[in-house]
């Protein structure tokens, strides 16, 4: 079943290269979930009968699979509806729980909206937030981080890997610093978990949010990691009720979702090495192929980066036209999915110092477990063709080719 299903729905057109936005579900995950819809359908909190016990057992098994992937204890895993809820819970939960100690949070400008919007909310309810800038590689400056810590600082919230450029922050250095200064370290691990070896012990992570649908699992389910030892971390629940999930997150458990999340984690752990070798080779081929185009630039660090992601700007090409050129054949995004329907240039790319024009002419490539060499070849050709064609029609490109430096021209307003 596995292979034929892959053929059916993994290789359909358009070619899917937006695995940072969401991933197709692995057929092995789907297979595992199905019985929990109609047969083992119990409420995991039902203590009186086997339907409940079976559901609870399935949940605890999944909790172990999730914990294993990140080197945690199963008791440190709290299921949520996704990473957005997880980001909210970790940040608001720490802000409430540690109110005695302080009210200051340090984050950075390239975080996902789930973190940034939550931080804005924290500011409205009496918190203070420092937003660290990033350099043109997309990395924060550790000295700036150090300088930002005050006696009132309760949390450093820096993402593991960025969703638009794939850049991996210096997690170990951040956690070491946090530990030295007695500040908790939360990381949004959404894009990294399952793709690179995230280990909460080695990485010194105190809290982390992540989600199943970015790692070939189902939508609507995620988890947070909450450290229980050295130090024991607590968060105030944001959703109260029956006291599920050690009182940190109430509500009837999404058993099929959790089972699928567990399976997805197990598969990631099992396949990570092989997947990474294969996918990063394709990514490198894609990148090399596209960089043959003149005036094309990779955004963000290529050294500290997820193995399946690259983000490239094609100068002198209009972003909208770029997408239109191939969107029947290739599913791609020009920013984060959450804003890709808007025409605002990406705030992440702008934070790297890109101007609006370069930000607009960027594409994010997120390869995945089901990407094939043929798809990459097709993509290189299709994009090369589109960029070349668009540039042929562009007066800016013509000027550039004639040696006029467009950045120096002062445009008259009219």
């Amino acid at each position, binding site marked *: 079943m596995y292979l034929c299903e892959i053929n059916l729905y993994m290789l359909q057109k358009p070619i899917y290269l937006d695995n940072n936005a969401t991933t197709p579900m692995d057929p092995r995950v789907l297979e595992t979930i199905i019985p929990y819809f109609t047969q083992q359908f119990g409420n995991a*909190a039902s203590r009186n009968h086997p339907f409940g016990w079976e559901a609870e057992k399935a949940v605890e098994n999944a909790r172990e699979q999730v914990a294993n992937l990140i080197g945690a204890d199963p008791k440190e895993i709290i299921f949520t509806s996704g990473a957005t809820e997880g980001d909210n819970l970790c940040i608001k939960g720490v802000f409430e729980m540690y109110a005695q100690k302080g009210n200051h949070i340090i984050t950075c400008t390239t975080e*996902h909206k789930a973190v940034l919007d939550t931080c804005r909310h924290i500011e409205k309810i009496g918190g203070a937030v420092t937003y660290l800038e990033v350099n043109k590689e997309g990395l924060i400056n550790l000295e700036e981080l150090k300088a930002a810590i005050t006696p009132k600082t309760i949390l450093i919230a820096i993402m593991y890997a960025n969703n638009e450029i794939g850049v991996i922050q210096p997690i170990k250095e951040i956690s070491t610093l946090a530990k030295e200064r007695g500040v908790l370290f939360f990381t949004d691990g959404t894009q990294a978990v399952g793709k690179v070896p995230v280990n909460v012990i080695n990485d010194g992570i105190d809290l982390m949010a992540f989600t199943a649908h970015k790692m070939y699992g189902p939508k609507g389910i995620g988890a947070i990691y909450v450290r229980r030892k050295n130090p024991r971390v607590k968060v105030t629940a944001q959703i109260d*009720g029956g*006291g599920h999930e050690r009182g940190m997150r109430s509500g*009837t458990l999404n058993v099929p979702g959790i089972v699928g999340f567990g399976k997805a984690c197990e598969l990631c752990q099992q396949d990570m090495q092989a997947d990474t070798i294969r996918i990063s080779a394709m990514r490198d081929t894609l990148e090399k192929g596209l960089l043959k185009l003149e005036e094309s630039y990779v955004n963000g660090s290529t050294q500290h980066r997820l193995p399946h992601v690259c983000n490239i700007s094609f100068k002198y090409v209009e972003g909208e036209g770029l997408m239109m050129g191939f969107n029947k054949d290739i599913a791609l995004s020009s920013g984060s999915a959450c804003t890709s329907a808007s025409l605002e240039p990406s705030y992440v790319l702008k934070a790297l110092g890109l101007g609006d024009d370069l930000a607009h002419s960027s594409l994010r490539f997120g390869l995945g477990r089901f990407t094939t060499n043929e798809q990459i070849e097709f993509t290189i050709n299709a994009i090369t063709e589109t960029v070349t064609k668009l540039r042929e029609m562009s007066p800016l490109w013509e000027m550039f080719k004639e040696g006029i430096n467009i950045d120096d021209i002062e445009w008259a307003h009219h």
Partner: protein
Amino acid sequence: MNTTSRIYLDNAATTPLDPEVLDAMLPYLKDHFGNPSSIYSYGREAKMGIEKARKQVAQLVGCTPNEIVFTSGGTESINTAIYTSVNYLNCNHIITTKIEHHATLHSVQYCEQKEHIKVSYLHLNELGQINYDELETLLKLPNTKTLVCLMHANNEIGNLLKIKKVSELVQAYNAYFLCDTVQTIGHYPIQFTDHLVDFAICAPHKFHGPKGVGFLLVNNRVNFPAFIQGGAQERNHRGGTENVYGIVGLAKALEKALNNYESYSAHVLELKTYCYQELKQNFEFLHFNGTLFENNLYTLLNFSVPDEHKAELLIYNLDMNQICISSGSACSSGSSIGSHVIAEIKPSYKGHHFRISFSHLNTKSEIDSLITTLKKFI
């Protein structure tokens, strides 16, 4: 594992997914996997699935599509409504009862302790009924903006609220009304017209829909920012990538439940009536809790066995005989604490309490098996 010979009579805790609902969900678990915020075809298909579901749900419950906010379930929806009322609608007084679901009770307690909101708990009679005059008196309290949190049907004893009456009172005194409709949406053809409530709640896993999804119905006059923040999903009311297949399944389950309302409810009421008669005939010492057949859910029965009849092991013995019922609700982890509902209305009663809850999938012969088995043990 043989699950087919089991008799499942705990449908108020959760229900099996209807295979037709699963069929509706499958395309969204496979081909239409895109992120609904993405603009290419995979994203648009997913988005379309959500918006079609929203329209369908709105039509089924008699509201406008923009009044439906999809969430992760009943508990999140209730928390959102209470948080919103206290933080954005300036409610400084909550009227509720002590037999609400824990999602309401614990959120209300949080507001009481942390936000210093005044909370009035309505008195209940021994059937668990409120007094509507007391509600009106409390609504008259000066200098207050009140949120009324009353469940439409109690999940343990089935009592139904006179929702229209409460709605009129709430409107007359310019208060807000959160009605926990988790046990009634999908079981009754409720129409949320004429500003019936400000907030209503749906959890489709209670009517053969999926877990991990639900909706909060928010009346148009209420304007509120997101409770879970980050991303513009659900018109800025709920951040996070949508549970697309769950939302599609929710709509399908609701459609099926309401399209079959007459036959399902007639069948289930017959089961309840039959079960009640059999219980009463065979075990005359049982005490039935709640209003039973008058203004009560047709989907459940709750009874107590007095202490002298040694019912401690009943649940386990039923289990040995493949029969699943509940002692107390499923929604409190560690339900050994017992039922907070019965404890509230029958504080001095010494005995064990049981809830039997039915679905259209149950049969009369299953009730016979239940009665036969019960006879062996009490």
